[in-house]
């Protein structure tokens, strides 16, 4: 289940959704807003999404992970809107019987989300300017 969220992510609730009596391993990733990027001092940022397509592509990535790896549950939430330094921007959680699959699937999901889900980051710098990142 993939979600876009315009408010604080409830990581504890998401983690509970990963629980399963057969789950021996759970790997989570969280991406947070750093105070610097590419040598510039960052003040904050805002994410903009193409909601319908981001949702569909996010779900597709989670489905791919479930097919490719021997996992039990997978969840991903990506924030949209304004975020401050230290705020959670994206969270991925995977449960599996064993840790190999949990690590591999978690890594797959965050890599694919960053590469494919239509979300854009606008960084605000401490110098006062801001700009879209279009790598």
């Amino acid at each position, binding site marked *: 289940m993939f979600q876009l969220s315009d408010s604080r992510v409830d990581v504890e609730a998401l983690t509970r959704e990963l629980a399963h009596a057969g789950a021996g391993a759970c790997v989570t990733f969280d*991406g947070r807003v750093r105070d610097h990027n590419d040598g510039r001092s960052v003040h904050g940022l805002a*994410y*903009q*999404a*193409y909601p*319908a*397509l*981001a949702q*569909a*592509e996010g779900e597709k990535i989670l489905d791919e992970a479930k097919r490719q790896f021997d996992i039990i549950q997978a969840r991903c939430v*990506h924030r949209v809107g304004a975020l401050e330094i230290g705020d959670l*921007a*994206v969270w991925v959680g995977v449960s599996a019987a064993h840790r190999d699959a949990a690590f591999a699937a978690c890594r797959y999901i*965050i890599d694919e*989300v*960053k*590469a*494919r*889900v*239509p*979300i*854009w*980051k*606008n960084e605000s710098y401490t110098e006062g300017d801001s*700009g*879209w*990142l*279009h*790598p």
Partner: protein
Amino acid sequence: MNYRILYFASLRDAAGCDSETCTATSTDARELYAQLRQQHGFSFDPERLRVAVNGEFTSWDRTLVDGDEVAFLPPISGG
């Protein structure tokens, strides 16, 4: 042909709106982008953009039909 055009990120800033209705004679996505680029002064060459029609990624070769919702997506930076 009438299309609904969606804009995101720096294209939205350049267009000054998040969406607009656009009348065009062409059913070719490249020609449609060229027309909008000229109108709004977009800096992106089409090679740097992806196309989505009606909420799905598609190719630049797709033939558009009247009423399509078309988005030209600049390079993404989520995560």
